[in-house]
């Protein structure tokens, strides 16, 4: 509590006020403040989230894939020192010798732990080499959805009026246009090659649903008294959106980031599998591997070769399983009631209020 402004010794409470003067003497350094911010904003939530088994398994899986992507990137890069480092060889036909290494089953040799395909390529290597592009696509698609949806949703909800009705109508229309057919038509016409473009293209209309949810949220939050208070104090719209509104939207944004990433994986692999996006190379995408197994090796008809189809499938399911577990685990981060129950700091009456995210 600070002394009153008239310069006298008296504080507002009428006392002389030296008990509360310690603020001026004990200065908090900037680094300390940052450390505290970091502690509050990252360490505590992370520790909290880690209590949830879904979060643990999900994070382990996601980091596993990131690691795979890193290995492939290092092995394949021609960048300074890294050019000489090859952890896993890039898969190519007959890479282990002659035809006797075609269609080798999994778990037989450390050279090809998951077996080889019908032209003798290392399946494990191909899965690893397809990872970086897959991750780029997934990330690009997720960011695209979240950014467009947040901008459209907050502007529509906060501005209101004509802006709102135009933006809402646009989102409604985009929401009804069937997603995958549109993506397929566009992919055929544009024929993109760059993963940073393919990713957003695969979820091109996906932002609309999230934008509507965010708009609805913003509508109810802007009526809250603390937002009203900020507005009366003359704080700028931009700052109100940043400070008061955005934190409330984070759960939706996180969950939808993960869900649209999953959609990128599903659509992407599907289009590669059908050959709409494929341009040849076996280790381009897990979907291409499935396509090769399906058409060239007839893995479906010859039971001994089914592993050629199953291995890339396992890679796909693993990544999306990790993403879904992660998004389910964030419940605990963002839902204060669930969080309190977890630490046991406040007594709650048991069963209520666990928000579970819908997957569609």
């Amino acid at each position, binding site marked *: 509590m600070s002394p009153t402004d008239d310069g006298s010794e008296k504080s507002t409470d009428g006392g002389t006020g030296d008990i509360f003067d310690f603020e001026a003497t004990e200065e908090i350094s900037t680094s300390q403040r940052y450390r505290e911010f970091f502690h509050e904003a990252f360490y505590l939530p992370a520790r909290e989230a880690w209590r949830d088994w879904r979060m643990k398994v999900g994070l382990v899986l996601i980091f596993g894939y990131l690691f795979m992507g890193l290995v492939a990137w290092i092995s394949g890069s021609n960048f300074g020192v890294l050019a000489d480092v090859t952890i896993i060889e890039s898969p190519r036909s007959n890479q282990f010798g002659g035809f006797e290494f075609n269609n080798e089953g999994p778990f037989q040799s450390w050279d090809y732990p998951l077996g080889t395909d019908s032209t003798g390529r290392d399946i494990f290597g191909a899965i690893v080499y397809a990872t970086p592009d897959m991750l780029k696509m997934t990330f690009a698609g997720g960011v695209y959805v979240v950014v467009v949806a947040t901008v459209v949703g907050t502007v529509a909800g906060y501005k209101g009026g004509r802006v709102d009705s135009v933006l809402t109508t646009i989102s409604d229309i985009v929401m009804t246009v069937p*997603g995958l057919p549109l993506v397929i038509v566009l992919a055929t016409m544009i024929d993109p090659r760059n993963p940073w473009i393919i990713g957003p293209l695969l979820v091109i209309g996906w932002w609309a649903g999230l934008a509507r949810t965010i708009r609805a949220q913003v509508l109810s939050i802007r009526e809250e008294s603390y937002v009203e208070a900020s507005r009366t104090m003359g704080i700028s719209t931009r700052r109100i959106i940043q400070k008061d509104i955005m934190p409330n939207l984070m759960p939706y944004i996180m969950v939808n980031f993960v869900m649209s990433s999953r959609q990128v994986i599903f659509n992407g692999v599907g289009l590669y599998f059908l050959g709409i996006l494929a341009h040849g190379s076996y280790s381009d995408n897990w979907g291409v591997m499935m396509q090769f197994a399906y058409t060239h090796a007839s893995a479906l008809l010859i039971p001994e070769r089914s592993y050629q189809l199953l291995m890339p499938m396992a890679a796909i399911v693993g990544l999306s399983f990790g993403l879904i577990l992660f998004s389910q685990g964030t419940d605990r981060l963002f839902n204060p009631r669930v969080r309190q129950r977890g630490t046991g700091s406040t007594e709650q009456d048991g*069963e209520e209020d666990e928000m579970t995210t819908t997957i569609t």
Partner: protein
Amino acid sequence: MNWFIKRIGQGLFTIFAVASLTFVLIRTMPGSPAQQLAADIRQNQPSLSARQINVMVEQRIGVDPDQPMHEAYMNYMLNLAQGNLGESVNYQEPVADIILRSLPWTAFVMSVSLLFVFIFGIGLGAIMAYREGSKFDVGSSIIAIFLSSVPYYVAAVVMIYVLALELSLFPLSGRYPRGVEPGFTLEFFTGALHHAVLPAASFIVTTWGGFALGMRGNSIQVLGNDYIRVAKLRGLSDRRIALRYVGRNAILPMWTSFLITVGFMFGASIILEEIFTYRGIGYYMFDSIENRDYPVMMGTFLVITVSVVIAVLVADITYGKLDPRVESGGGDESY
């Protein structure tokens, strides 16, 4: 009533926007279908004049490369409005005929799958919510999460392998048994159902989990409300509380995701019908992409859009009847 008109207008506008998009794609993209088709015809029949070629192109895809942009656009839209979707390059027959032949099959598989997704998802989700924290709840949650991380085409491939090839329980491909005449006979009907099981099942297995988890979350939230406690105190039967109080309020927010699923399924049908060689609308769309048969591609895309718009409209209107709050405001809908 005002709300009703607005929804219909929006639906019509969506169809209009998608039709315009297809026009833009056909007409203006570099190496566009119109140019490609003209080049094809010129190669096959070099004797034709440029004018004759353009007339043939227009007959096929409804876009004359010679006309100025706005006239071509008017023509294209008028043709569409009359139900003229052009003529298939590959099959040499009107696109509308192909679609009329295939759409009912897709609709059949889709309605079967939707029905079961809804029953399984809602039912299991509600039971999970009632037994929250029990072994049943945890077990089903894990299964639901796992199954929703399996793409439907992966499920399809696994099912073909296990149920069609290894166990020979269901047919591998096709729409109805060979040698059976399509008609109102029991044999045809059971045959068609038998063939639809695998495509529908690959969809049901991978989709019910999302609905179950959503329903579980919603029910748990509803169960915590005061009016449920009051209903219990009033001595209402558990059955009545479960159905009228909890069930109804928990299902309402699911209606929207139900809508999105309809659109999603049409998309999924492209991949699924290709895998099962099930000649529905998705099969023909994929086929047209493989063969660069642009009239069929655009026609199927348009028809799928129209179907989704109609489905969404129907669901929207019924939702308005279920939940009167939507018609009055609609500002604070939740998903």
